[in-house]
């Protein structure tokens, strides 16, 4: 049994396998299938200051080795989370991280401030990369000034571990990562979805209600790996890598490219037990390669 513990800022995770926001509900949805206590962390659904109904149906379509979604941050707002959901999930023995979104800097800070008081929420993940909302969202994540302003403001009100989730829809991901680090992010997670689109050739209509949506799944893995690698060469804070991870081999690839931990998103839809399989698989992998601690893998790509 190798040591799977990793540190993300002040936060120690029992293993590097975290569930990605928007793909794992509040964890409860998966409790029939796996022991949630075994996870390294759970990142819950994108949460905003006010309740949001999200976008209209249709919200998703399958693509080659992936899917497009345009959920649009449907959630009941941070107060509902704190009152109704948090009490139900706070006792899960894993790091419960809230993914925070907003349309303005003030919305981000107000949400983060409310979450700061919750004992069993050791970290938040700032989503400055959602492609499926009209205002804010990805706009913050695709410019350095946008990213900088949100992060520095949130940092002031949220003293615990601050993870910033970056958008891949940029010319230079390393540049944005550098700003995030400079403004006080404790960790960077990447990637969010690639902006994509689907068309129905028979009806001549876009498949998604919002025309474009976010592409996830194995299709984007090569792009995600590349960005993790680029960011790893640029910043010192730990990176959480994600994008198309389907199994332990994929997870190892992200660690080698520079990730300290990984998230699993879309794969949960195909196999609700995938997270546990990846944890077990990482263990086996480390033993087989005679590696004592998983932290040794991070960035150890031989070039």
């Amino acid at each position: 049994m190798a040591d799977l513990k990793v540190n993300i800022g002040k936060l120690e995770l029992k293993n590097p396998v975290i569930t990605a926001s928007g793909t794992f509900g509040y964890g409860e949805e998966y409790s029939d299938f796996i022991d949630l206590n075994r996870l390294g962390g759970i990142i819950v659904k994108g949460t905003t200051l006010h309740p949001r109904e999200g976008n209209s149906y249709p919200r998703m379509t399958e693509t080659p080795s992936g899917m497009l979604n345009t959920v649009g941050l449907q959630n009941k707002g941070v107060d509902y989370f704190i009152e109704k959901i948090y009490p139900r999930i706070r006792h899960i023995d894993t790091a419960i991280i809230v993914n925070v979104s907003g349309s303005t800097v003030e919305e981000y800070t107000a949400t983060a401030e409310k979450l700061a008081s919750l004992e069993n929420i050791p970290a938040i993940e700032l989503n400055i990369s959602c492609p499926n909302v009209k205002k804010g969202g990805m706009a913050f994540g695709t410019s350095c000034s946008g990213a900088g302003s949100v992060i520095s403001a949130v940092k002031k009100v949220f003293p615990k571990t601050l993870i910033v989730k970056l958008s891949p829809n940029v010319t230079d991901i390393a540049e944005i990562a550098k700003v995030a680090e400079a403004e006080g992010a404790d960790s960077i997670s990447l990637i969010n979805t690639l902006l994509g689109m689907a068309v129905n050739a028979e009806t001549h209509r876009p498949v998604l209600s919002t025309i474009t949506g976010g592409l996830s799944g194995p299709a984007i893995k090569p792009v995600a790996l590349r960005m993790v690698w680029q960011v790893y060469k640029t910043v010192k804070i730990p990176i959480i890598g994600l994008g198309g991870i389907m199994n332990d081999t994929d997870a190892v690839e992200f660690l080698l490219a520079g990730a300290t931990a990984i998230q699993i998103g879309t794969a949960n839809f195909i196999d609700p037990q995938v997270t546990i399989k990846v944890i077990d698989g990482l263990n086996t992998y480390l033993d087989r390669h005679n590696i004592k601690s998983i932290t040794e893998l991070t960035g150890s790509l031989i070039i």
Partner: protein
Amino acid sequence: MRKYIQNLQVVNKQILSEEYYLLELKSLQSLPEILPGQFAEIAITGSATFLRRPLSIHDVDYDRNTISFLVQIVGKGTKYLANIEPGKFLNVIFPLGKGFGLINNLEKALLVGGGCGIAPLLYLARHLYNKGVSISTLIGVRSSMQFIEVDKYKLYGKVLITTEDGSEGTTGFVVNHPVFEQLSQFKKIYTCGPDVMMKAIAKKAIASGVDCEVSLENSMACGIGACLCCVTETIEGNKCVCTEGPVFNIKYLKWQI
């Protein structure tokens, strides 16, 4: 209700027509309780499909420990399953969703299935029959050649038929059937099929003051309430079809009809 993920073995595959087939899967454990109208998410690995495919539970045989599906070939996944051989295993998450509203003092119900929409109605029909409900099942297909399952529905009540080409029963669409002129004889309508059909039925149901439930087939990524992709607009806001449905009372839906 607890959800299960199991590898079920294909024990029977029956080609009904060029387009339709039956697939019977056996659990090596004993089956949990399954309600009429619930569905399953089937993983199709090693093919060009990516996500699981949702299919209504067509029938359940607790003695043989099997569930079956009535499938229409429309694309890659349904074609793949049409070619699967008995003996193979499929990874299935089930039972999912809430199923049909099963009230106790129901006397007379109308079941309406359009095309493959009849899939969830067989198990429902037997369930209602066993509870003493008098049922009529109206099946609408394009042509008489399309379907060979009618006899099964006859076990549980009257069967009415419409075909678009007039090759059997009433000619035209489901809603053209004369039964809709005496709709108030029924206490409840259960229906599944294309959206346009269900909306037309919903309209008639409202006009006649008959309670009506529809089973939606919104596209789904997870099937378990985690992704929020499958929503339909309700009077209480967007609700997941996979967990709050797939069956909804039309009173609850914000349908433009």
